[in-house]
């Protein structure tokens, strides 16, 4: 369970998170939605312990995120691996640090994502790079997966592969997966819980099915309406 209590993050004059108080349930696939610059990445970084909140706090399973790094698999939007490395070298590196590395899962995902171990990060396409980074994240049986814009800049075919990879090895009832994206269509059918962020605030959050039933609309439509009405209408289903 990830809890944000009055979480506020400022970058100079910019307010990235504005007094957010939400609880993200355990063992679910959670969609973190919102337009560009809404504060989704900052929220994920805070959950991963990569930013320090200006005020308030965040806990993962009751502990500070930095204490939970061995159990968190964070996939940032940008590349994080040295360009000179191959996928094999990166896997070797991850294997050394994370006890939850699953070799079987790694080998299966490697085939599924159409990647080869000898591919160098500096020499592959953007789509392949995104898939390779996702591979290294999904090869872990981490309790909590934090995926920041996994579809950013990826063509439609690679998007399909990524979506399939996300669900293929997801350990239902054992893993929490938070996917931050502004491209809701890609994962609307995957998510069980949703959080809409706008201007650093949680505009709407709750169970995805309940939201759909209550509003009688798709998640995409609900989000569009939520942002049209502005973030003053904070709603919790």
């Amino acid at each position: 369970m990830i809890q944000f209590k009055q979480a506020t993050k400022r970058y100079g004059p910019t307010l990235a998170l504005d007094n957010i108080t939400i609880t993200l349930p355990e063992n679910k696939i959670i969609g973190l939605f919102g337009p560009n610059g809404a504060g989704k990445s900052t929220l994920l970084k805070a959950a991963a312990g990569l930013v320090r909140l200006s005020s308030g706090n965040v806990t993962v399973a009751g502990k500070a995120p930095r204490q939970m790094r061995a159990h968190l698999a964070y996939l940032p939007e940008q590349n994080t691996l040295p360009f000179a490395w191959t996928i094999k070298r990166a896997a070797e590196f991850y294997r050394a640090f994370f006890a939850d590395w699953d070799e079987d899962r790694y080998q299966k995902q490697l085939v599924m994502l159409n990647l080869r171990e000898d591919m160098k990060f500096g020499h592959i396409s953007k789509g392949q790079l995104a898939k390779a980074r996702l591979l290294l994240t999904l090869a872990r049986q981490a309790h909590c997966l934090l995926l920041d814009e996994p579809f950013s800049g990826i063509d439609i075919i690679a998007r399909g592969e990524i979506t399939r990879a996300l669900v293929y090895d997801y350990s239902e009832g054992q893993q929490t997966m938070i996917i931050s994206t502004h491209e809701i269509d890609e994962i609307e059918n995957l998510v069980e819980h949703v959080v809409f962020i706008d201007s650093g605030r949680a505009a709407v959050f709750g169970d995805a099915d309940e939201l759909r039933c209550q509003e009688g609309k798709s998640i995409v439509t609900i989000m569009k309406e939520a942002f049209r009405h502005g973030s003053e209408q904070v709603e919790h289903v």
Partner: protein
Amino acid sequence: MAVSKWNMFKQLFQKEWDQVKTETYFVLALALTVNLAVVVFNIEQVAPLYAFVLMAPFLVPLYSTVQLFRREWSEGSIYLLLSLPINGGPIFLTKLLAILLEFIVQTAGAYGMTFLFGYIFEVTSRTNLKWAWTMAMSERGSLILQAAVMTGLIIIAGMALLASTIFLSQSLGRLVRRYQGLCTFVSFLFLLWLAGKIAVGAGDLVFRFINLPNIPHTPIPQTAAMWQTTAFLLATEVLITVLYLAGTAYIYDTKLEL
């Protein structure tokens, strides 16, 4: 899958070595090229060329130190490091060890190659080297060799001190959002000044309790006096390096964010 601290350390070191090995090969290639060029083209004005080759092992590791930290941010691998279940201590220690290895390999390679080429192709150098070897085997030569070892140790520790100063000043520079370069540069100058103050302070403290001998007039054997002074200098350099490295790790663990 079990993880071991040793394997983590090894992987971190290998990551850092991967980053600096290009510069290492560059200096070795430069030394080889210059030495070959001098022999093949029979160049007479060799001093500027050799100055370049023999200075490179001291300057290039400093450039590598700056790049080692800067690349983490420019390539985004800082995200990877900050996501690992370890603190800043081993991260910066492995960076420092990679820089020291780079320095030692470059120095040994560039100087070794130059001496070797001199020995093989230059009759004068060969005579001089033979003379140096005979000297080294004599009683006075042993003293010279020991002095060379002491100087080498002090230089290696000095490189460690400079590298840790660069790491700490870069970490301090990252704490501000604007004028990071200026802040890093000012921090670097300040930390060098502080290192000087710490060294003088440590010297005063030591001299208060231990009477270090004046080497030329020492009543005890000259080498022992030299080793005492070397040990003091080394201890001071290592102390400041450890302090600065601990400061860097502290900033990394408690202040740095993305």
